[in-house]
């Protein structure tokens, strides 16, 4: 069975949502926290509801609605989200009040909206969609888990037109805590020169990206999703290479068949070591592109990478701002995304022109 990406919508720190050119005007940031460019939510959500919704719910619902709209889909066959940290804003709000008010007279709204399944639930509620609804919350492979679930549902003939997305928000509290944990650069850096000034730490990001998956070969499909695989704590770069080669072989492909590799390089020396090693070995004859300087580092950023890949394939265009090193043509037919999160969770996605 083949699985296709029918449509996609992406809310990110770049101009990626609505009627925009494909990354012709990349946005430069000179701080370590990239915030999404907010769409006009009133176009997607009842204004009465918007006031009560936290940031992640708004961006999740709007991206989902736009994704459905792009493929003229009224009712998806399933709704699946991946979110590592869930509804952080509401979680922190409730936790803060709990402490400040010493467990008394707490308002319930923040708690109600703090559960990790809130985005998927709100989409179902707005669409009155009674179908399969699931939420994966596993760190750097939350989105990949959701995507695997979607591909299994298609394989099982349980559903078609599956809405699957990756959503994570950065809040002031999480940015402060993650900064203290040493994830980000100490001083400000331009996202455009993130890879030229490699040092310790990266830049934080956020986003909401949704896809509609089908097994029907429709003329408007953006791309084919050939395969997805994750692996955990590889011993060394040799094992990573073996995993990549085995993944390609599973789909009857070799590295030479891949026109473009999109990597999860994020400007942190330790994080990027693997990518540098691979680019002089397994990826040495392939065009390499990066994406985290555009959306920032966050656990479901691979959803941004998959959006980027489907657009590159559909538009037959690899935007200059993404290219690290060019070796082959710029209208890629077969693209592999290789990302790892903190060198613990590694993921591979293989996407092809239809």
């Amino acid at each position, binding site marked *: 069975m083949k699985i296709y990406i029918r449509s996609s919508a992406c809310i990110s720190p770049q101009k990626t949502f609505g009627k925009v050119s494909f990354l012709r005007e990349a946005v430069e940031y000179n701080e370590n926290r990239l915030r999404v460019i907010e769409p006009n939510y009133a176009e997607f959500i009842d204004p009465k509801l918007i006031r009560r919704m936290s940031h992640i719910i708004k961006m999740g619902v709007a991206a989902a609605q736009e994704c459905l709209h792009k493929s003229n889909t009224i009712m998806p066959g399933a709704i699946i989200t991946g979110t590592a940290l869930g509804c952080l804003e509401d979680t922190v709000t409730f936790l*803060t009040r709990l*402490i400040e008010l010493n*467990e008394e007279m707490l308002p319930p709204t923040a708690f109600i909206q703090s559960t990790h*399944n809130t985005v998927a*639930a709100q989409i179902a509620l707005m*669409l009155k969609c009674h179908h399969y609804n699931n*939420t994966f919350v*596993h760190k750097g492979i939350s989105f990949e888990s959701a995507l695997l679930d979607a591909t*299994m549902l298609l394989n099982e003939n349980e559903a078609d037109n599956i809405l699957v997305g990756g959503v994570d928000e950065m809040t002031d509290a999480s940015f402060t805590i993650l900064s203290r*944990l040493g994830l980000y650069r100490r001083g400000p850096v331009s996202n455009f020169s993130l890879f030229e000034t490699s040092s310790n730490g990266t830049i934080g990001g956020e986003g909401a990206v949704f896809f509609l998956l089908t097994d029907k070969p429709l003329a408007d499909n953006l791309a084919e999703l050939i395969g997805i695989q994750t692996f955990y704590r590889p011993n060394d770069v040799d094992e990573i290479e073996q995993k990549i080669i085995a993944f390609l072989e599973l789909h009857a492909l070799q590295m030479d068949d891949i026109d473009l590799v999109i990597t999860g390089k994020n400007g942190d020396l330790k994080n990027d070591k693997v990518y540098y090693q691979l680019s002089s070995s397994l990826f040495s004859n392939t065009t390499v592109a990066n994406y985290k300087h555009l959306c920032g580092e966050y656990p479901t950023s691979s959803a941004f990478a998959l959006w980027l890949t489907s657009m590159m394939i559909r538009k037959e265009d690899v935007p200059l701002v993404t290219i690290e090193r060019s070796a082959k043509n710029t209208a890629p037919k077969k693209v592999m995304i290789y990302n790892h999160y903190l060198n613990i969770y590694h993921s591979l996605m293989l996407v092809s022109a239809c």
Partner: protein
Amino acid sequence: MGPEIYIAGIGAITAIGNNVAQCLSSFENEKAGMGDIAYLDTLHRHKMPVAEVKLSNKQLAEITGISTTISRTTLLGLIAAKEALSDAFMDDFSSLRTGFVSANTVGGMDKSEDFFKDFVSDHRKGKLRNVFDHECGCVTEAIADQLGIRDYMTTISTACSSSANAISYGARLIKNNLLDVVLAGGTDALTKFTLNGFNTLMILDKDYCRPFDENRQGLNMGEGAGYVVLVSAEVAKTLSKELYCKLSGYNNSNDAYHQTASSPDGTGPYLAMRGALVKSGLNPSNIDYINLHGTGTPNNDAAEGTAVKRLFDPNYPPMSSTKSFTGHTLGASGGIEAVFSILAIKYGIIYPNLRFETQMHEFSFAPEKRFLTGQTMNHVMSNSFGFGGNCTSLIFSRI
């Protein structure tokens, strides 16, 4: 229906027992797990009962051999997960493709609460070791590392249906030939965050809960963990120990009515139960017992009861809510109640719905009040419904 999925092992820790045998014994003795709050440091102590696991973090850490600085959610999960694996005689699964699919709702929130005490007033303060593993996925990862499961792991969080979804997702990973063995279920420790959250919704009973009673006043918060070992037919053939039963049906449907409340006509619960029956190829009359979601809130029991009526009327199977023993263990409840449903098949038992007195006026059925043995149990349904309209039903069947 596709390939069969077998249950090779089970493990549970709840307020009524630190392992499966202790839980069973409490059922037989009709001994509920609720009581005054003993371990959770909260203002609500002495004001409402909860169903705590009767071990301190220090004791849990001693049993598991890991640090007390780790979330109670991880400690509870590790105990039940280990029990399930050793029950399946699967201490060595290195030659099999093995996965861990675990659920929880608030990750390491108990430790994050400690962190935020200091962080709220000064963002430079708070011990980072209490917050770095806040994520739900960290709980799963810590347990998987202890068990040595590396081939695949993920975490599901769909509120109170979380671990029922973990079990069906685990089964599907095997059916899709991605794995041979999956340890699936969930864990949730009591936290101030969830206790206060449910308290703001005014759905906590100040006394012991009374699921499916006309005069029910709400739920009691509980905690615990429950896991099952799912194996493919090929693996099942190689095991020396007798299998428990098979997972014959499952369905995930959404109520799509309200973020927290269930629809008056029980749409989500009805679709989940009906879908699970369709998946298993069974009729309502084949079900020998329903382990109800039965939280004891006016809203849940009315919606679930309406859905049961729509599907089963006029021939109702015996049913009960084991939350009258364990309290509502949130993200762990689907896993814990799956374990109880499996035991119901293995031993031919039906659990009593404690403290039931008055039948709900809108229904012509009532839950079972007695502990029954010697029952013919071919098919058992287990319900788990959650916030966000997430409704899941599982069906376990005798082999």
